[in-house]
């Protein structure tokens, strides 16, 4: 899932400004592969554990002395706009900050925040998308 230039991004109520993109990646952290004696191909493939990683990229203008801290838990809410009111979506996700890194060049500064999604229940998708 990719959201370019979301209308609004908040983390635990605090507005994160200058967000240019948010990506939500899903990857298996435990894959089950089972083979039997009938041939070369797996006859059971399953993902028993999965990790949802969110990456938020901000353009930073001027000084910024506040940034999230790794380990911080909060609800990330972003509004994905479509250029009009029609089709706007709200994405909510409870997640934990894993890392914060900054890149500075002569042309500007960006901050990348990586978060790991956390589910209230193990069988519930932590990323909730709803229409506005």
């Amino acid at each position, binding site marked *: 899932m990719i959201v370019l230039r979301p209308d609004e991004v908040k983390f635990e109520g605090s507005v994160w400004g200058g967000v240019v993109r948010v990506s939500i990646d899903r990857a298996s952290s435990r894959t089950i592969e*089972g083979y*039997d*004696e009938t041939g070369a191909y797996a*006859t059971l493939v*399953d993902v*028993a*554990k999965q990790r949802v990683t969110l990456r938020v990229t901000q353009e930073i203008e001027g000084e910024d002395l506040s940034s999230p801290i790794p380990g911080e838990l909060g609800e990330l809410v972003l509004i994905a706009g479509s250029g009009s009111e029609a089709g706007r979506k709200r994405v909510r996700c409870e997640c934990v900050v894993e890392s914060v890194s900054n890149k500075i060049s002569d042309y500007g500064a960006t901050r990348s925040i990586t978060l790991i999604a956390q589910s209230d229940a193990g069988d519930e998708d932590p990323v909730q998308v709803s229409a506005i």
Partner: protein
Amino acid sequence: MGSSFKGLDLFGSGPHVFEVDRQGRRIIPLSLVAGDASVAGTFESGDYELRVTVKGRLSALSESALWTLRYAIASQAAFNVEEGDLVDQHGRTWSDVKLFQVEWSGSVDRGRVLSVGYEALFGMNA
């Protein structure tokens, strides 16, 4: 064709393979019998007993269904349960073997399906 033990489809819910343990003459060091490490030599003591291990994963769509599959295997490993024929997926048959034990490989994995790994040891006593 499916595998079976005593005509029961114990392993068909998921992938599984059959492994036959070592075969041939059993060579015993004399030092072991004598209890003296300085004694040289070995002797033959019959053949290795048959051991066949079925390794695989049980899979089910619910907790209760998975437990039913687990109980079905475990009950065949209980003391005094009769021996029977073990048949692999190609029809190879090991006659009159017992299920000695089953070991579960860790916790249940919960993805699209519920599954748990196992190793079931079959064999016969000479």
